C-alpha cells in the first residue's frame, strides 16, 4: 500500500453528475461500471456490518472501492439537545454509546462546568476517573467480544462478554444501573461511592486484570488471528494524521497521542499514565492497542483508589435551572474508549444550549475505512472494519 494518499478515494465509488439535485440513495444512482466489477451491499442486516451499510465494489476477491453509508441510527441528538436544559440533557446524551456512557458524558459535563463556572470537589473528580476507566474497560470488552464474532472466534465472544459483567457489577453498585448510568452531572457525580466500594473494586479489578492477560494465549498469540489481521488494512503514520483518525487507530499507527496525558482533565495529571503506541498500523495493532489500554486502565483505577480523598463532598449543589453567562462557546474533549471525544457547546445565556455538537471518534475514524479497504480481500473486510473501533450508533448520533 502506498503512502501517497489518492486525491479522490471515492472516485471509483458512486458519483452523481449533479451534486445535491437528485437525492437517490447511493446504491441506486445510475453509474457506469466495468463488467468485472460487482457491487455488493453489506448491511444493514449482515453479521459483518452492524448498524450501517457498506457499499463495496469488488473485482474478483479484491475490493476496488468502499462507500460507507451510515445514518441508520441517526436520532437527531444534537437537535433535541437544543430543546432540553443542561441537566436534562445528561441521560439523553449518553445514549449514543451506552456501554461507554461515562466517557461519552464526560466532555459535556466538563464543558457545562466551564460555561457555568463550577469547581468540582476533588473526591468527585476521583470518582469520575474511576468510573470513566471502568467504563472504558466495559466498552473495550464489548468491542473485543464483537471482534471475536467478526473473526469467527467464538471463545473470544464468550470470554470478554462474561468478564465484562464483573465490571458492570461494580458500576451497578456505584450508580444503580447496568449500562446507562447518567452518573456524571455538572457539578460532580450523582452519588457518593457505596460503603466498602474501594475494597470490592480493588479485588474485582485485580481479578479482571489477571483474567484479561489470559486473552493473549487464546487470541493475540493465536497464529490464525495473526495471519488474518497482520498486514491487513495498513494505515501509515502520515495517513493516520492526515485523515484525522483518533484513539486506538491513531496510536496503532505510531502517533503518541492520548488526551489523558496530553490535555489532562480532572485529576488525570496527578496519575501516572502510560500511552500504548504501536507502529505497525495494521488491523492486528489496532486490535491489540485497546487490550493494552485495559491493563493501563486497571493501573489507573488502582492509583486513583489509593490517592482518592477518603471523605468529602462529591457534588456541588446547582441552582434549579442553571444558565450560561451570555454568549459563550466551549469545546471540551476527553479520551474515550474509542478516541478523543469532544463537545462544542454554544450558549446564549438560556437554560438550553443554543447549539450542541458532538465530535465523535467513530465518525472521525470512519473516513479511514474506504481508504483502508481499497485493495483488500473481501474476506478481510470485517476484521478491518471492526478494528477501527467503530460504534455506528455513536457515529450517527
Amino acid at each position, binding site marked *: 500500500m502506498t503512502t501517497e*494518499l489518492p486525491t479522490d478515494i471515492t472516485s471509483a465509488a458512486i458519483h452523481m453528475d449533479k451534486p445535491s439535485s437528485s437525492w437517490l440513495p447511493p446504491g441506486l444512482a445510475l453509474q457506469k461500471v466495468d463488467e468485472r466489477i460487482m457491487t455488493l451491499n453489506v448491511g444493514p442486516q449482515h453479521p459483518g456490518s452492524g448498524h450501517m451499510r457498506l457499499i463495496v465494489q469488488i473485482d474478483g476477491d479484491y475490493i476496488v472501492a468502499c462507500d460507507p453509508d451510515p445514518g441508520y441510527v*441517526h436520532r437527531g441528538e444534537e437537535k433535541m439537545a437544543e430543546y432540553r436544559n443542561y441537566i436534562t440533557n445528561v441521560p439523553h446524551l449518553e445514549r449514543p454509546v451506552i456501554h461507554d456512557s461515562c466517557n461519552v458524558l464526560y466532555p459535556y459535563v466538563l464543558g457545562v462546568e466551564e460555561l457555568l463556572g463550577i469547581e468540582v470537589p476533588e473526591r468527585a473528580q476521583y470518582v469520575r476517573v474511576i468510573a470513566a476507566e471502568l467504563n472504558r474497560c466495559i466498552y473495550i470488552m464489548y468491542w473485543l467480544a464483537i471482534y471475536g464474532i467478526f473473526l469467527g472466534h467464538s471463545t473470544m465472544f464468550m470470554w470478554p462478554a462474561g468478564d465484562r459483567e464483573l465490571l458492570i457489577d461494580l458500576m451497578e453498585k456505584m450508580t444503580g444501573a447496568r449500562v446507562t448510568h447518567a452518573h456524571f452531572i455538572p457539578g460532580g457525580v450523582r452519588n457518593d461511592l457505596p460503603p466498602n466500594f474501594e475494597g470490592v473494586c480493588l479485588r474485582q479489578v485485580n481479578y479482571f486484570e489477571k483474567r484479561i492477560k489470559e486473552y493473549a494465549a487464546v487470541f493475540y498469540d493465536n497464529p490464525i488471528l495473526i495471519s488474518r489481521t497482520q498486514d491487513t488494512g495498513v494505515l501509515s503514520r502520515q495517513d493516520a494524521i492526515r*485523515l484525522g483518525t483518533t484513539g486506538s487507530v491513531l496510536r496503532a499507527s505510531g502517533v503518541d497521542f492520548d488526551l489523558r496525558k496530553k*490535555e489532562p482533565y480532572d485529576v488525570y495529571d496527578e496519575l501516572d499514565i502510560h500511552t500504548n503506541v504501536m507502529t505497525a498500523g495494521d488491523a492486528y495493532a489496532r486490535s491489540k492497542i485497546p487490550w493494552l489500554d485495559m491493563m493501563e486502565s486497571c493501573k489507573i483505577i488502582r492509583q486513583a483508589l489509593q490517592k482518592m480523598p477518603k471523605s468529602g463532598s462529591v457534588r456541588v449543589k446547582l441552582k434549579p435551572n442553571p444558565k450560561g453567562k451570555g454568549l459563550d462557546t466551549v469545546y471540551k*474533549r476527553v479520551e474515550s474508549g474509542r478516541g478523543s471525544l469532544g463537545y462544542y457547546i454554544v450558549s446564549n445565556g438560556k437554560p438550553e444550549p443554543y447549539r450542541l455538537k458532538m465530535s465523535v471518534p467513530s465518525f472521525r475514524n470512519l*473516513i479511514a475505512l474506504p481508504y483502508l479497504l481499497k485493495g483488500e480481500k473481501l474476506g478481510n473486510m470485517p476484521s478491518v472494519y471492526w478494528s477501527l473501533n467503530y460504534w455506528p450508533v455513536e457515529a450517527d448520533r
Partner: protein
Amino acid sequence: MSSDSEKPTDAKPEEKPAATKPVVKKPEETPVELPAFEKGISDKIVEKFGDKVEVAFVKEDRVGINVSKENVHDVAEFIRDGLNYDHVESVSGVDYPLEQEIAVVYHIGSYSDPSLARQILVLSTRAQREENPIPGHDATKLPTLRDIFYSVEFHEREVFEMSGVYFEGHPDNRRLLLPEDWADLPPLRKDFAIKGR
C-alpha cells in the same frame, strides 16, 4: 472538480478590499492576562492576514479566529503550512437566523507538533442564510477545505445535509446521515421545528 476548488483562490484578489473587518482584539476592558502561547498563535495569524481575520477569543488551549468566506481558504492553508496544524476534529454549522447567517466552525488540532497537542484552533466562517433554502442551489455556499485538510470530507458532507451549507469544490456532496427521501428543511436550522416544541 479541481477547477472548482481553485475558485476561492481565484476570487480572492478582487475580493480583498471588500473584506475589511476591523481587528477586534478581545483582551477586554479588564486587564486579564492572556495565555502567552495561545496569544502567539493568534498574533502570527493576525500578522500574516491583518484586517482579514478577527480574533474572536484567546483562552487557555483555545484560539478562536473569525474569517470571511473569501479568505477562509487562504487562512486555512496558512494554518496548515505555517502553524503545523494537521487535522480537523469537527465541523459544525451554527444557524443565526437573526443575522441571516450560518456559521461554520472548524475545530483544528495537531498531532505532528507535540507543542500543539493541547491546542485547538477554532476557525469560524459565515455563509449567507436563505429564508427558503434549496440546499446546493442557493447562496448558502462556502469554499471547501477538503483540499487542505483531508479529514473534513465526511464532516462537510454532514454540515451540508444538516445545515444546508454547500461546499464548493467538495467532490462528494452526497447525503450522509439523513434518510434518502428527506425533503424537509435541513434539520439543524433554527426554523426547523421538532414535534411538539
